[in-house]
């Protein structure tokens, strides 16, 4: 196979020889796997989307784009740091001013996608050192983004103090299973685009579809305003995106023939372990996401029921705020209504809701009187 021969001379291997890392593995191990027929479909390059592996020159270009080593390292790190700080500032300000356009702009500036794809590539190649360096860059960038978000929020604290939190910000605190699916598709797209230069115009779209910096900025802002509960949701969104991209990209690299067959055979078990671990990470974020999703569906149902019930209960009242929760087969609703005349008794609302939901309902009702004063100063 000509592919594997030329691979030996590609630029990455001069710096880092996978064979060295895999020296501990007796070759007999691999043959045993073959005998058992496990993973005998590998090298998966043959299953690639084009039925063939990546040409060697393309492969080295991709590696150059993903890994910055030797003299490239220092300029890369400083560029990365500057872009992290700038994109987070843009994202944080976009979130705080509730501007979707500014937030999308931040996504295009964000540099996190490269080290995440590098993590996937290193994972599927079984390069331990490159893997950990990439992970360190990603986590360092994430920490820097959270800190920048925190600092930006502190600097512009007055913008969100005492007002209702912007929708753009809140949207990043309630991840659900859809976000997981989006991140998987976007991770696959990211890896695919990275390998196919002709499709590289699609890369910004990948960054927008699965935003990394805005959730991190949200984490920082939420910590700064003392809402750890919201920060938790945003951190879960980032973790989801991260785990899903790593997994989907690794799988894409494998399927589309980024991994040469000879390398696949070497240290195959380590690569499989890496792939399995990243799949497990996806499962690990899917569990809390499922809980979030079920909770969201449940809360939305309850909110809809409250809105309907209020209309039937007292059409003279307008809903100002609903705070509802379901726990242990019991709905708790804090409702603020506004009207010109006092509302009908709250128990009738509780009774309506109880009959519709067939479970106990606790209602706390606040009533604001809509009143009017006129004045002139001249």
């Amino acid at each position, binding site marked *: 196979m000509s592919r594997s021969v030329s691979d030996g001379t590609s630029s990455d291997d001069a710096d880092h020889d996978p064979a060295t890392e895999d020296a501990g593995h007796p070759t007999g191990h691999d043959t045993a796997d073959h005998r058992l027929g496990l993973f005998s479909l590998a090298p998966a390059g043959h299953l690639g989307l084009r039925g063939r592996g990546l040409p060697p020159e393309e492969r080295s270009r991709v590696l150059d784009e993903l890994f910055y080593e030797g003299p490239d390292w220092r300029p890369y790190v400083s560029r990365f740091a500057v872009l992290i700080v700038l994109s987070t500032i843009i994202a944080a300000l976009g979130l705080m001013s509730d501007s979707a356009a500014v937030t999308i702009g931040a996504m295009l500036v964000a540099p996190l996608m490269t080290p995440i794809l590098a993590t996937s590539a290193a994972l599927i190649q079984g390069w331990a050192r490159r893997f950990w360096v990439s992970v360190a860059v990603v986590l360092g960038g994430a920490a820097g983004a959270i800190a920048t978000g925190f600092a930006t929020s502190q600097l512009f604290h007055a913008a969100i103090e005492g007002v209702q939190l912007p929708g753009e910000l809140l949207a990043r605190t309630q991840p659900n299973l859809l976000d997981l699916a989006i991140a998987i598709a976007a991770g696959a797209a990211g890896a695919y685009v990275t390998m196919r230069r002709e499709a590289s115009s699609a890369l910004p779209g990948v960054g927008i579809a699965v935003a990394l910096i805005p959730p991190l900025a949200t984490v920082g802002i939420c910590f700064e305003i003392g809402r750890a509960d919201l920060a938790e949701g945003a951190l879960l969104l980032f973790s989801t995106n991260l785990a899903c991209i790593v997994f989907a990209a690794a799988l894409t690299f494998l399927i589309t023939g980024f991994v040469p067959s000879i390398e696949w055979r070497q240290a195959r078990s380590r690569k499989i372990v890496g792939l399995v671990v990243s799949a497990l990470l996806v499962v690990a974020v899917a569990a809390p996401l499922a809980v979030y999703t079920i909770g969201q569906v449940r809360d939305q149902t309850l909110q809809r029921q409250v809105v309907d019930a209020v209309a039937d209960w007292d059409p003279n009242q307008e809903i100002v705020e609903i705070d509802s929760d379901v726990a242990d087969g019991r709905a708790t609703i804090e409702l603020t209504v506004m009207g010109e005349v006092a509302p009908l*008794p*709250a*128990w009738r609302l*509780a*009774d309506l809701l109880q009959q519709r939901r067939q479970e*106990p309902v*606790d209602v706390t009702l606040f009533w604001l009187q809509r009143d009017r004063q006129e004045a002139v100063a001249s």
Partner: protein
Amino acid sequence: MAIGVVVALVVVVPALIDVLDDNESPAPAPEDSTEPVVVFSELLGSEARALEAVFAPFEARTGIDVRLISSGSFETDLERTVDLGFPPDIALFPQPGFMEELAEEGRVKPLGPLAAEALAANYDPAVASLGELDGTTYGVIVRAVVKSLVWYPPAAFEEDGYEVPATWDELVGLADTIEQAGTSPWCLAVRDFDASGWVATDWVEDLVLRFSGVEVYDQWVDDEVPFTDVRIALPTARFAAIGTDPRQVHGGSGFVLGTYVWDAVDPMLRSPTDCYLLRQGDAQAAHLPGGTRVAPDGDLWVFPFPAREPGPPPMLLGGQLAAPFDERPEVDQTLAYLASPEAGQIWADRAEFVAPYATWDTAGDSALVTYARQLVDEAPVVRFDASDLMPLRVSRAFWAGMVDILGGARLDTVLAEIQQAWEPPPRDLITAP
């Protein structure tokens, strides 16, 4: 064959259960068991959950669907449903006076045979007579709360060297010492929607019982001693002197008038404590933040609201009377169940109150309930909350008047206004809508 067995089971087993049920209770099975028995109360939060638990086994056993509706503005809402002609089937009245008014109007019905039998079997006759009017029994007392208690934080008392007072003078002295040390002694809050002010009427009632005696108290309840009488006005003035003094009550009138009744305890639970004394019944136990320990060495404990002389003071009680608005047999059955120690035991296990039954296993009672029961047993005089015994319009005037006094209104004017509420209202107001 298998289908036959299933059909047989489906048909026979419920019939069998019905027969067994009939054997257990002589009441005829409800004809239309789909119509629920609606129970209306003022119990919220953990107290509402306790009541749900009380009815769970009853519903399972009898097939009667008990619907519980609770409202924080019980009196207003009950009055409105009754006026509109849609009363509940059973109401748990905190005010025997209100129940009697509705009984006189023929809205509340006399107890059915099963409930009357359960009352006779399980209650001390003196307690059972609380629901009586002119020889007919309308209500069953299902819950008693002991009101003449003062809550305090034992640890802060020990740390600051304060001692539990044994007389009224010692209590006043303690409050002054605390004030001089730079903290407000009393926690007081009276806001409770339509019933705002009841905390203050409890204070006055306790002071009338202590300073003017039980005879005056009883005459006052029956409108034989007016609110304007000096024997009522003086105890009221004693309370007003404390309640309107911004150095004696935490947060001044803003906190007193603006804070929800059960939140009065919050500043006491702070560290360091912001007030040391809260005159409030054992019902406060259901309204404490989770994890608060009520015990002599806990976060909070109580001492009896002292009398002039050392020794056991009089005790003021409150409670709930369950009374029917309907004579359907399942309503009677439900009330009879409420009057049984079985229901009481489930209830008392979940909410803290002194169960009023004569035959009662006290082993499961909490430290607070045990102490409250002991104080009631030792008390030379036990009386039901006066404002709750008066007609509802007088209770309301009394509650509202106390709010006015705490807001700085003149005592004599307010007392004269409250007294006027005894005059029956014009006819057209009673029969409105």
